[in-house]
């Protein structure tokens, strides 16, 4: 069953590209930030799919003696950090969008570029 083992990587690729598309093709700045958060969520999915072990459970060892299979804790730690990085970037991006809205009265990328060129 080839597909079962690799489906996560394809979904990772798909989400990465959906986010990347939104970042490049969409003009609305808030939509770009949503695309950015999808783009970053794809990476979280990649790391957590690496951590999965067949028949394993979350790495919480209630009694060390029991021979249990656990999933890999390291990617989960990395992703805990990356999630909070993602939301920090989104929060800062939103603050900049709010300031751009007050300065340019629009949050469409092409209109802003036209206003810049004219001034």
């Amino acid at each position, binding site marked *: 069953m080839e597909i079962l083992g690799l489906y996560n990587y394809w979904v990772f690729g798909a989400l990465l590209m959906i986010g990347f598309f939104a970042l490049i093709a969409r003009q609305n700045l808030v939509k770009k930030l949503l695309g950015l958060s999808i783009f970053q969520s794809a990476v979280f999915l990649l790391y957590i799919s690496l951590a999965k072990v067949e028949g394993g*459970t979350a790495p*919480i060892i209630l009694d060390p003696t029991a021979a249990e299979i656990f999933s890999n804790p390291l990617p989960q730690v990395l992703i805990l950090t990356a999630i909070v990085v993602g939301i920090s970037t989104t929060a800062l991006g939103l603050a900049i969008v709010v300031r751009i809205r007050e300065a340019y009265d629009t949050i469409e990328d092409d209109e802003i570029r036209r206003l810049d060129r004219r001034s």
Partner: protein
Amino acid sequence: MYIVASLAIVMTMCLALTRALLGPTVYDRVLAVNMFGTKTVLLLAVVAFLNGRTDFLDLALAYALINFIGVLAVLVFFQSSRERAAGKPGEQR
């Protein structure tokens, strides 16, 4: 036995998602989000029992709480932006 319940819940989440995608008005989408959140809580509880790792139930409680706050936040912000857009004299800031 848990399989049946979790299958049904996943099906409902799929239906809720289609409602969220189709929903003509914003309130339909809020309804879909609310349904989705409750079903996630249920699915979490059932899967926790399915895997036998029942110490993850407080995750389900966190989801329920976050979902409630999310729905209320959407209503409040949507209401205030409608008021601002409509420029009702009553609540004019």
